[in-house]
């Protein structure tokens, strides 16, 4: 019985506590500040974006020749003022040699692997796959020139733009230029980043 009394006593205490607890009154929304949608004025931002877009498009369109070095290629800086011209592009990075964005030979420690050299001779200046790729380009350009004899800008001039990493050794550079010379490309243009004020 004592247990039951105790139990009923406890129950009654809990019941009193429950009845004493009162939920907080619901918040009343003041009539003075009703919900209003915030209206963001986007017009200045739109004007700004339009100006930026126009400037970028102008910059994009005024450069007929796009030179985009690969991410692992760091071009040297120079005070030259000459703009790039349309030409066959040879990129020399620390890993590969590319002709118009297609890889032709691999580079290791600043040297072309001997398998790409003439007779597999590491001392040779002649890079065989580079020569073949450039020879194809020369043939294409000559064919275009043949059917466009009146248009001077389409005549074959043997122009090559060299996009080389600034850490490339002179030996590798001369090997590429020598091979280009063998494929009838005798005028070179070194791509550089123009410094301020040039």
């Amino acid at each position, binding site marked *: 019985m004592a247990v039951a009394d105790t139990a009923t006593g406890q129950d009654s205490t809990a019941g009193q506590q429950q009845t004493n607890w009162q939920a907080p009154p619901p918040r009343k929304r003041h009539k003075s500040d009703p919900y209003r949608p915030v209206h963001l004025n*986007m*017009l200045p*931002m*739109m004007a700004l*974006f*339009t100006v*930026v*877009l126009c400037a*970028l*498009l102008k*910059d*994009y369109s005024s*450069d007929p020749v*796009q*030179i*985009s*070095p690969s991410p692992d290629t760091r*071009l*040297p*800086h*120079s*005070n*030259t*003022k*000459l*703009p*790039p*011209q349309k030409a066959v592009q040879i990129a020399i990075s620390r890993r590969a040699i590319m002709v118009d964005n297609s890889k032709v030979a691999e580079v290791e420690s*600043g040297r072309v692997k001997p398998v790409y050299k003439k007779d597999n001779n590491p001392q040779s*200046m002649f890079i065989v796959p580079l020569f073949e790729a450039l020879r194809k380009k020369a043939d294409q350009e000559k064919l275009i020139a043949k059917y466009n004899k009146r248009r001077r800008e389409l005549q074959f001039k043997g122009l090559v*733009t060299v996009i*080389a*990493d*600034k*850490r*490339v*050794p*002179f*030996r590798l*550079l*001369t090997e590429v*230029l*020598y091979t280009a*010379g063998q494929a009838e490309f*005798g*005028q*070179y*243009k*070194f*791509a*550089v*980043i*123009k410094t301020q004020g*040039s």
Partner: protein
Amino acid sequence: MVQKPSERSKSATEAVDLDIVPYMDIVFSLVAFILFTSTGLLQIGVINVNAPRYQDPLAAAGMNKTPEEQKKQLNLTVGITYKGIFIAGVGGVLGQTEEEEQAQEKGAAPTIPLKTDDPACRDALAKNIPPPLSCYDMIKLTQEVVKIKNEFPDETRIFIYAQPDIPYEVLVKVMDFTRQVEGRNLFYDVVLVPEIS
């Protein structure tokens, strides 16, 4: 008779809210695309370089030229080595006596030696390895080239050679400092000569 006012005049006073969000989307996408795909922020230029060409041996030796023309021919040559920069012309190497020129093959001092105030330069010199770009005294190179230009104002051709492991960056800097100074053209007709060992 007075006409009834038009209903259109009342409706025209209502504000029209233009939805510019789709336009903003397009413009933002275009700006992002152009910024990420173009190298427009980098101003890329080019340097003209020629390869040496084979020519008539008589012409090369200057046999069919008048003595005056032969005298004027300079053939300015700049060599970039691990020890410094050599400047030479038809007459000989600049800043060296005849005995020094003869001794050059044994390792005589270059016209413009490397700067030795930097430990990296001294280290490169001692080990005979390619020194960093900062070790070359480019200001002095320009001063020497200006002196030569004063003597040969009509000459524009310069031959440049380098040792095998000289970085391309050094070559470009040498071309920069011999091409132009303060708006005055110096030697801009660059001919690259195959390496020396």
